[in-house]
């Protein structure tokens, strides 16, 4: 089907890559089918031997994913440190003036709403994964790349919105849990165990809050970003971030629920 294309800014930029079939809305975007190392399209050579910036449709995506991976690895160390201190504090005590050994740790009973929150977070992982996969559906990606509307982005938006909704729901649920604990007079400063309950749920909530921010940026990008590839990267990376926070929460939740 012949398609008339008015040259866009991208196309006029001298960085446009003709050999990557860049007709103006970016070079060929990554799709879900196959993870090819070679070009095809009469281009049988090994992509990783090409100059940087021309190594196939997945090049930019992989770069951003790798950056995210390192960031998450670093973030995980943060939680490793906190969880280690959890166990240290749980198992340490002190001698008081009468030479009695005292361990002040009083296990914090978690509010049952956390179970619900966990379920909500898992569901949100599902919705964000659907959105992510929809960004790479071959047929729609090709249409969108050719300039025939934005079918890919359009199909991802509802699921991103749903993820934001479930994310907010989770945060509201966490707030409810903090309220319930406060009613029982369990505060941050009450006890070594409650220190950790609040510390862990707060830091995780901050991460999730940032995650919602990232999702909103991705949503914004779906409407206003020029290149399909950029939109895909935005959704892909925020989805992986979201998944990681979900899995992390499952572990933290298990810690708080069963290892008090």
């Amino acid at each position, binding site marked *: 089907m012949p398609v008339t294309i008015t040259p866009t800014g991208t196309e006029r930029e001298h960085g446009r890559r003709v050999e990557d079939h860049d007709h103006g809305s970016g070079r060929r975007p990554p799709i879900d089918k196959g993870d090819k190392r070679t070009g095809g399209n009469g281009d049988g050579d090994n992509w990783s031997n090409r*100059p940087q910036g021309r190594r196939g449709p997945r090049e930019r995506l992989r*770069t951003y994913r790798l950056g995210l991976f390192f960031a998450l690895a*670093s973030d995980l160390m943060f939680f*490793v*440190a906190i969880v280690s201190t959890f166990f240290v504090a749980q198992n340490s005590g002190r001698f008081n003036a009468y030479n009695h050994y*005292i361990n002040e740790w009083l296990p914090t009973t978690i509010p049952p709403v956390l179970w619900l929150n966990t379920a909500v977070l898992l569901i949100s992982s599902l919705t964000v994964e659907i959105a992510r996969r929809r960004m790479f559906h071959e047929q729609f990606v090709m249409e969108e790349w050719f300039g025939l509307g934005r079918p890919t982005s359009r199909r991802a938006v509802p699921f991103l919105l749903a993820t934001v909704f479930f994310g907010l729901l989770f945060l509201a649920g966490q707030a409810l849990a903090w309220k319930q604990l406060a009613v029982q007079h369990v505060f*941050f*400063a009450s006890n070594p165990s409650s220190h950790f309950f609040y510390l862990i749920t707060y830091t995780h909530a901050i991460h999730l809050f940032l995650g919602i921010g990232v999702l909103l940026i991705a949503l914004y990008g779906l409407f206003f970003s020029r290149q399909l590839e950029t939109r895909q990267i935005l959704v892909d990376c925020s989805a992986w971030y979201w998944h990681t926070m979900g899995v992390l929460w499952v572990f933290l939740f298990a810690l708080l629920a069963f290892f008090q």
Partner: protein
Amino acid sequence: MMTPRSAAELSSRQHPFRKSFLVHALFTTDHRLIGLQYLALAMVAVIIGMVLSLLMRLHLTWPDRVIPLHGPILPEDYLALVTMHGTLMLFFVMTTAPQAGFGNLILPSQIGSRRMAFPMLNALSFWSTALALVVLLASTLVAGGSPISGWTAYPPLSAVAAAGPGQGAGMDLWIASIALFAIAATMSSINTLVTVVRLRCKGMTWSRLPLTVWGWFTAALLSILAFSVLLAAIVLLMCDRHAGTSFFVPTGDLVNGSLHAAGHRGNGSPLLWLHLFWFFGHPEVYIAILPGMGLTSMLLANFARRRVFGYRLMIATTLAIGLLGIMVWGHHMFVAGLNPFAGTAFSISTIAIAIPSAAKVLSWLATTWRSRPSYTTAYLFSLGFASLFLTGGLSGPILAQPILDQYLHNTFFVVAHFHLIMAMAGVFGLFAATYYWFPLVTNRLMSETLGRWHFWLTLLAAYGCFLPMHLTGLMGEPRHYAQLAELPGSAANRLLAPTLPLNMHITISAVILVASQVLFFANLAVSWRRGLIASANPWQATTLEWSPALRAHSHPTSDGDLAPVEAFRRPCHYWSHHNGWHFLPQWDSADTTEPKSE
């Protein structure tokens, strides 16, 4: 040969409208400019840090002198000086300059790339670091002044505002600054890692990477693991200070004469902070030194016109040092109440790290052995690095034995050790890097005459300053101790009286050491505009940053129409043939079958 175009010229080509140079420089995402910004920041920090160290030395030698505009240096002032000196030097000089400064300036072109992976993130990292520096320096202005708990911020001193002057608002600012710094360092390391993994040019296989790149890469790996643990520790410390927790100070502890109880609950222990802090702290010193080690290997080989002895082995030792580096943190805690069995384990792992370190030194020796090097200033500073690393390293296995550390911990013996192996060696690495890469930035050479004076004065003064500290430490001079003499009736003063002549010697050397740096700054300033014009590859180097294709262009974006870069071989390919030295740079596509060396 293309001539390098100026940044302004390039930017006018890139941007439809011309920004003023200042705006361009401030909001740049060009990795080279960001590298220079980092170096400028480190320069500010090092100058302040040097002045503070001089004040400490002068106070130790002439305790009664009064500082103009300030008055006498009180003991708490001395501790504030130590804290600010250590924090500035370690974080804002030795972490930023080698890793982020030269890393940004040089790393991309050494792997054949024209950009860093995430330019915006790069700028963000720099500005966060700059903000962190401002916050740190602001602590001198608040009530109570700068904190006094050292760069290691041990509780209870760091956890309780009442513990001393500077431990209130000053400590809060310190904490904020370090938290910001940790985040910035993590972001910058992510950028480094992704750049090395993803942006290597064609032919730049892992085993062809210059050893400098391996140094940056390993240091970045350590950074992303270590700095977030520091961040976690700092969050806990903040909670102890402001949220009524007690992670690091047990309830009922007596701090500065008052009971630390009200509102704080917990079984906290300072030992926990030590574990968390040193899990970061030890890798931190390797983050500071690994880039210098890589550079030393490369420069020694380049000026000696020799292959790096055991290239693959050097890659392996770099990684091994990184790996072992995260398993030795307990050697800072032998006298802190560590389980003796843990002490033994940490002692063994620490002595094990001597093996890859010794392999490095041996490789440096073997590379230069019986070569006929050209003694440029950059080469001299690399030799100096090797020398200082060796001298400082020899006291490592001594300190690594718990039984000896019982005595030596918290004496000047330790100060001598870490200043030689980390501070001075690290700074020598920075000097070598500056003399070596200066032409890349300015197209001019730094003055070799001034450089040689600078080298010899710095080397002699550094040894003159830090070697005798071993002796005063053995004689019992403690660290973090404000006054050695002239306190009438003080038993400690009587004990330390025999160290005074040596301390005088140390202080005089320190003054010479600091004064010699004037030569360096003068050299920089003069050579920037009037240095000899450098040839395209003044050191006959083999690594890609000197390749014409990469020197011609420095802008990070759109490399669509630029000459492709390819690496054809390992670096350091030299041989002598008939009447001269020959070399094949990494970018030269000539047949790799080399002529027999004679």
